[in-house]
């Protein structure tokens, strides 16, 4: 027997009121991560160990700077919701779980802040 109301069925959001948003976002960023990270891997493979001047010149290229910004956004969203699932799967004490979920978001935003500061500083100020 289906206990859901017709309105609930139409909305399709489930008990968490988010529907398939988390699932979809993980797939969306998974797909965008593929080309972005392939670019990123080749960029790092090319410039790992490069001189400071050489790396700055490469990062000053607007195409490189924009792509790296997109890499950061896509990868950090993907890893944040991925880690959220890991925490929810293994941490059952409510207080610890909430604290870790908050730390997870803080970590992703902090790393994103560092990345974007570095990319923008080099792109605009050298």
């Amino acid at each position, binding site marked *: 027997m289906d206990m859901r109301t017709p309105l609930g069925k139409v909305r399709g959001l489930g008990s968490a009121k988010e529907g398939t948003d988390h699932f979809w976002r993980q797939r969306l960023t998974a797909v965008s991560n593929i080309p972005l990270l392939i670019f990123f891997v080749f960029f790092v493979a090319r410039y790992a160990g490069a001189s400071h001047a050489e790396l*700055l010149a490469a990062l000053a290229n607007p195409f490189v700077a924009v792509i790296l910004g997109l890499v950061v956004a896509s990868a950090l969203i993907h890893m944040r919701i991925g880690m959220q699932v890991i925490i929810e799967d293994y941490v059952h004490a409510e207080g610890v779980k909430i604290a870790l979920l908050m730390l997870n978001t803080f970590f992703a935003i902090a790393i994103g802040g560092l990345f974007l500061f570095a990319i923008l500083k080099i792109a605009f100020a050298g």
Partner: protein
Amino acid sequence: MTDVTRSRPLSPHLQIYKPIPTMVMSIMHRITGGALYFGTILVAWWLIAAASGAAYYDWVNWLFGTLIGKLVLFGYTWVLMHHMLGGLRHLVWDLGYGYEKHFATKMAKATLAGSVTLTLVIWIIGALLR
């Protein structure tokens, strides 16, 4: 009533089952995802060093260039490739394909073989670009 919750019987867990390729690769997908998460610190460090000036960048560059640094970066490359191929496998499943038992096992083995191959290719290309 917490004692009741704690003394409930548990379902059989990991130690009960024989590890099979699909299971091992599923676990590896989660572990590599977690490793990539913390590995972002290394990448952020590299870019922040580049933004902080030549002296600090040269030091970080030297550190990443040591044998231990290279091993960590080699491992990080493999972890990224493994998670990416594992993710492609998940996208195949999301599209409704690849559930047949023997094919799924083949895909699991291909994920490992592919990630090792891609890692070596990337490092060879990286060496040639220098």
